[in-house]
Structures are given as C-alpha cells and as structure tokens.
C-alpha cells in the first residue's frame, strides 16, 4: 500500500519541480543573457491579451453562493460513508445496499425540500 502512495509522492515532487523550473527558467535565461530584454508598455502589462480590469480584484461575492457551499459539504460527508461501503460492497451484499438506500432516502428529503423551496434557483 505504501508503495502506491510513494508513486503519489513522486508525482508531487515532479509537479513541484515543474512549477519551480517554469518560474526560474526565464529568470536564469535572462541572467545568462540568452534572451534579450526589450520591454514595452503592452508587453509588461499584467494582461498582455484581453481586457484591462476595472476596479479592485477583491470584491465581496454574493452571499447566495454560500448555500451551494453548504449543500456541497453535505454531499461531501455522504461520500465519506459511500466510499468504504463501495470498497466492501462484495461482502456486504443486499443488507449493505438496503442500508445505503435508506441513508440516501433520508438525506434526499433535504434536497427535495431545497428544490421545492427554490433555494437552488438564481433570481
């Protein structure tokens, strides 16, 4: 099992090295005078292509997004139960299936309620 996680570790190290290389490579190329330095206002603007931004980037988001975050958390907790259940599905047989069906039925009542109340609609 730990060997498999070791592969994840290798992937992480590779991703980290890739990110560091991508940042340091242009700096090093510039330092060794391999690439020329010819800046102009368009080139050194933050958004070389696309529209200029208006106002601050820190804006207060609509609080309505929060209900989606809360409902997502409920789904997330459900996944924590479903994941081991799915891993042992072969041994749990029909009893496990019924158990999980009851679990989902109870929670789905809440989502039906949310739907009926129109919480998920965007006005």
């Amino acid at each position, binding site marked *: 099992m730990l060997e498999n996680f070791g592969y994840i*570790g290798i992937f992480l190290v590779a991703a980290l090295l890739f990110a560091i290389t991508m940042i340091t490579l242009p700096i090093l190329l510039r330092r060794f005078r391999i690439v020329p330095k010819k800046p102009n206002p368009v080139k050194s603007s933050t958004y070389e292509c696309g529209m200029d931004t208006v106002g601050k980037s820190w804006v*207060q988001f609509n609080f309505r997004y*929060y209900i989606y975050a809360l409902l997502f958390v409920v789904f997330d907790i459900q996944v924590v*139960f479903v994941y081991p259940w799915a891993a042992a599905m072969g041994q*749990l047989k029909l009893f496990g299936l019924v158990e999980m069906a009851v*679990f989902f039925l*109870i929670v789905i009542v809440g989502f039906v309620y949310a739907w009926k109340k129109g919480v998920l609609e965007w006005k």
Partner: protein
Amino acid sequence: MEIAFWILAVISVASALAVVFLRNIFRAALFLVLCFFTIAGIYVVLHADFLAAAQVLIYVGAIAVLIIFAIMLTRETPRGSPSGRFRLIAFLVGATFLVAMILVVTGTDWQVITEAPTEPTTSPLAQALFSREEGFVLPFEIAAALLLAAVIGAIALVREK
C-alpha cells in the same frame, strides 16, 4: 519512511505557523489547506489510508472550501484581522492550552501495538461499520438524519425572506 514523516511534520508545523502569523487572511486559509494536506500525508505514513482519504475529503474538500467561501463573502478581507482588544487574553488562553497539551502528551503512557497494521483499511472498516451483526447500522442512519437536519438548517438560515 522516517524521512517522509519528518518532511511532512516540518511542512505542517510551518504552514500552521503561517496560518497564525500571516496578515492576509486569504493566504492564511491557503496555508491551512497545505497544513491539512500534510496531516493527510502523515496519516498515510502511519498506514491509515482511509483516514488520509477522509482527511482530504472533509478537511481539504469541505471545511477549507467553507472557510474560503466565507472569506470571499466578507468585505475588506485583504486588510486582515484588526488587532483586537483581547490579544493578551487570547495569548494567555492559547499558552495555557499549549502547556496543558504538552503535559498530557508527555505524561501519557502510550501503548504501542506490536502486531502489523491491517492494510488497506477501507474494506475492514466498512465491514465493521455496516455489517448486520456487529455493525453500527442505527447510528449510521441517525447520521443521515443529522445531515438532513443540516441541509434544512442551512436552507432556513441562508434563504432570503
């Protein structure tokens, strides 16, 4: 093995300190995510694979998302938290808690199990939780009722009148 643990431990402690000391609260939240990830890595090193997955799912997936949402919904976050009037009291409470934790951790007689850890842990855990004879079927369904209450409570709190 040992090396992996120490790397993860150093990163987690450093990111936890960054959470406390950074002025920008959004960056602090991102360091909190890093801290949660390294804790998951420590669980992997300790052969607790399901716990690591649950840590990533719940802490990184749910709690960090909630915290970041809350920051994005708040006004004037880049200014950071103003230095409160309760700084000294908070420091005293925190220091007391730290001392208590250190005393408990060093004073406890930790029992070390000699048998090898079961792996992977997910399937045995599911059988312990869901099996008909010695499982926890009723608490599991009550957890569903708790989630239902959470959904309805969230709707009642957030919905506009």
